[in-house]
């Protein structure tokens, strides 16, 4: 909110101008591995993506790491769940029947060249989603005219209330920096029972799929820091930019890894926006 205020103020009153420039930038001596691991209660979502960082201006395709050894260890039993590289998805995947179970803690292990990385996370129980509705709304402050979706449910937990909702609109993930929908219990959770309105409008006949994740705190904070970084305009009102704090630690070698490990249940619902049912 304050962000909007500042942007408004700066753009309106301070006569700011913008132009694209080229700056000579330092380059990292070493290209860092990026590990993005998702371990859920639904097998189709489970995967580990690995790539390498690159120079800032480099617009070539990502360099995918295909030769890593990836597995998840079940902490209670020590059972190892192997992941294999799948060319079609450019990611490492386990057997489709493998999935996370509530209450279990999982340890991600990645071995690549002479480096090894670990992260862990606990599978939390999913909240309850009762219904998903939509309604046409006139233009409001910070909201354009259109159909707005509300999610109704119940969150019966007193701890670990860190949530993310991903929205897929007509098979396209809404993945701009404005599209992140993250919430915790700072402002209570009553709004989830009264109906959580998604912050973007839809059109008639849009098919919208919602995915609700319940995250461990470290993964939630990683995403929060990521969003803050994406909004960091480098100005005086922004904090000094920093990489999000990864929950993946190097256990062999000194090269840190970028990215994060998410262990989460997923609740998904799909709705078709139809005005006649509004």
């Amino acid at each position, binding site marked *: *909110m*304050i962000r*909007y*205020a500042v942007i*408004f103020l*700066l753009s309106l*009153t*301070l006569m*700011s*101008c*913008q*132009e*694209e*420039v*080229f*700056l000579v*930038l*330092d*380059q*990292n001596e070493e290209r*860092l591995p*990026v590990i993005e691991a998702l371990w859920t209660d639904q097998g189709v979502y489970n995967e580990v993506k690995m*790539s390498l960082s*690159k*120079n*800032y*201006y*480099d*617009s070539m395709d990502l360099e995918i790491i295909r030769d890593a050894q990836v597995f998840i260890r079940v902490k209670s039993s020590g059972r190892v769940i192997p992941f294999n590289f799948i060319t079609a998805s450019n990611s490492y995947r386990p057997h489709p029947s493998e999935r996370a179970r509530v209450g279990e803690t999982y340890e991600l292990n990645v071995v690549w060249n002479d480096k090894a990385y670990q992260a862990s996370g606990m599978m939390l129980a999913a909240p309850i989603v009762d219904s998903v509705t939509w309604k046409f709304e006139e233009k*409001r402050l*910070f909201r354009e005219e259109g159909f707005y979706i509300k999610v109704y449910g119940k969150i019966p937990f007193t701890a670990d209330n860190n949530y993310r909702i991903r929205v897929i609109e007509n098979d396209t993930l809404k*993945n*701009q*920096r404005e599209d992140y929908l993250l919430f915790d219990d700072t*402002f209570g959770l*009553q*709004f989830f029972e009264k*109906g*959580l309105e998604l912050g973007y409008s839809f059109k008639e006949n849009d098919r919208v799929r919602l995915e609700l994740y319940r995250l461990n705190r*470290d993964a939630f904070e990683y*995403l929060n*820091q*990521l969003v*803050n*970084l*994406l909004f*960091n*305009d*480098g*100005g*005086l*009102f*922004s*904090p*000094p*930019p*920093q990489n*999000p704090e990864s929950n993946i630690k190097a256990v062999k070698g000194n090269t840190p890894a*970028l990215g*994060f490990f998410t262990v989460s249940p997923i609740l998904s619902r799909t709705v078709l926006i139809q005005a006649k049912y509004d």
Partner: protein
Amino acid sequence: MPFLRVLTLVYLFFFGTQAYSQAVKTLNGQVMDVSNSGPLIGASVFWEGYTSQGTITDLDGRFQLSVISLPAKLIISYVGFERSIRVIHERETDKLLKFYLKPEELSLQEVIIQERRPDEQIKNLEIGKASVPIETIKNIPALFGEVDLLRSLQLLPGVQTAGEGTTGLFVRGGSADQNLVQLDGAPVYNASHFFGVFSVFNPDALKKVDLYKGNMPSQFGGRASSLIDVSLREGGRDKIHGEGGIGSISSRLTLDGPLFGKNSSFILSARRTYADLFLKLSSDPNINNNKLNFHDLSGKFSFVLGEKDKLSLSTYQGSDFLGLDNQFGLGWTNWVSSVNWNRVNSESSFFDLQAYHSRYKYRVDFEDRENGFLWKNALSESGIKANWTRIFKKSTTINWGTHHQLYSFAPIDLIPAPESAISPIATQSVQGVLLNLFGGIAHEISPQLSTEAGIRWGVYQQVGKGVQYLYPDGIPDRNIDPSDSVSFGTLEKMKFYQGLEPRLAFRYLINPEFSVKAAFNRNFQYAQIATNSSAGLPIDRWILAGRYVRPVRSDQISLGLFHNFDQNRWEVSLEGYYKDLRNVIDLRNGAQVLFTDRVETEILSGNGWSYGTEFLLRKNTGKTTGWLAYTWSRAWRQIEGISRNQPYNPRFDRPHDVTLVLNHEFSASWTAGLTFLYTTGQAVSFPVGSYVVDNQIVPLYSDFRNTNRFPDYHRMDASITWKNPDKGRKWRGSWNFSVYNLYGRKNPFAYEFRTIFNNDINFSFSDGEVVSARPGVVMTYLFTFLPSLTYNFQF
């Protein structure tokens, strides 16, 4: 206060041999403005032929001057007034002489930049102090034509700015919240309007501003880096006067005059912007439904209660408001008031008593049926200060006193709107009591050597009502719940700190035009802002020293060479300093400090240091006046958890800083001003690469903070003022035309590292399909060639 007595005795034992020399006969007088009988403060008084042995008048326009062989000519001069020369005879030395100075027909205020004794900087003990007369500030070319006190101070050596268009000051490597900005003795917690673009002070209502960036007198304290001491002027005592201006974005009016006869006066001053009036002219409802304004009101009422007593009441109230579409509102308000009682017990004994209250509050309204709320917070500081001053034999001055402060930071309240689904939030309130005892002695050991020593003892107690959280192993961690919490009742003791703050200064006069000065100064600061951005926001969270946040400690040592030449027309100084800061704070990555009681889990603590050399060449009189300043300085922080625990430069570290300020009077009608600034670019972090995560192209940063630089900053501003000197004795008007950034330099305000779609930095997803995406750099810059016109008037 036995300690002070002992200190005084010890001091006199070592340095006091000259203090008891033969008594010297003195001449007592008072200097006043003939037009309103108001006292003229700071008028120079000296015997003809003895310009370097004069004195200046005090708050009541009074002076004492050693008598030479009489009869002799006494000369009194004051800026903007005709010089008074009067032959004094022996018989006149027994009574109080009154001198009435006549205002000059054509005021020379515009071309004189110092209202003090010509050789003041050589003779006094002040090091690291800068005074800029308000008339000088008014002549500096200004952004939007809005004369701004704090922005003018940024032109002095040793003072850095956070960036383009902001009024935040970073003095000798200290952060912005380490400056004590006070108005007639009362602190101002948010000294800016429009998110820092303008400062809160209306220049028409001000008498003077003193910036202490080095040695601070012992009666002042509470902030680690500097004191910005702003005084409101008193009203005249003869008739109503007025002053004001109509500018590009605001207008202002000041009235002053007698209140209840000749012994009391008032001054009232008001200023308001009208940016929102322009917004209403727009046909676009997205714009004309918005509000954007600020106003400030200030007043001072002075009463002469008798021969010895004077009482003044000062108050300031200023507000900002930003409203969007009648649904969102952000407003903040300062209200600062003080009462000052000055008593002259005798010619050598003075007493000042001051009480003040400063309150700052903000409020955010959001009208929305889903998520509407009212979010508000307030903080206040109340204080009372007593200061006694005794002068012994003119060579020794002792002062002592006490200063009691009460900090009261109200809970941060977030109240949901009736239909809103969000839950209310209320943090705990925080209070602190700070009791200070101070004392100081200034002594002239010999005509060459003078010294000033002072000490301030601060005793701080954080008090309830409040809650203290306890953590496993005593280490606050946001990912670990507290192991316990302790509740404290009202005024119950929570955490205690105390600290001695010694101050010491020497001046050695090598010859009448050349002196060397040195000083040491320690300060403790018990309240600071928890932020890691460089510019302040109205919602910044102030925190008090407590169990987990220790008070900031600052030690500064400084050395200076001061030289005047060409009959004091020119001043040149070279000062060096080293400052050590302890217990400075920063925030963790992703810290959330606004709605939590566990702020300690979001804070990182460490040390800092800074050093530098400041050169100043200043011309004080003549048709061309101004100064040239060069500062070489460095500022460092070392905080565990930041920059791999290695030292790093804060954003405002700008090693090279050049300032040129010129003012020239072409004729009685035409005056021009020119300002040029050059500084090293801000210390910032640029990416060293990029990567993709969560479907985002993310800039990759080094672990080391602020290793890159913005391009060097430079800018030239100019102004020209025209007035008709022959017109209007009752109404005098002048036009000022100024240009900010004369040659249109695109100084970067920010570099944003983001994905650029379709090779268009303004591309919006509603514009169409995305056909390309690449990492890019978008520069934001402000204020290229910004002209403004202001009409100023006096009556």
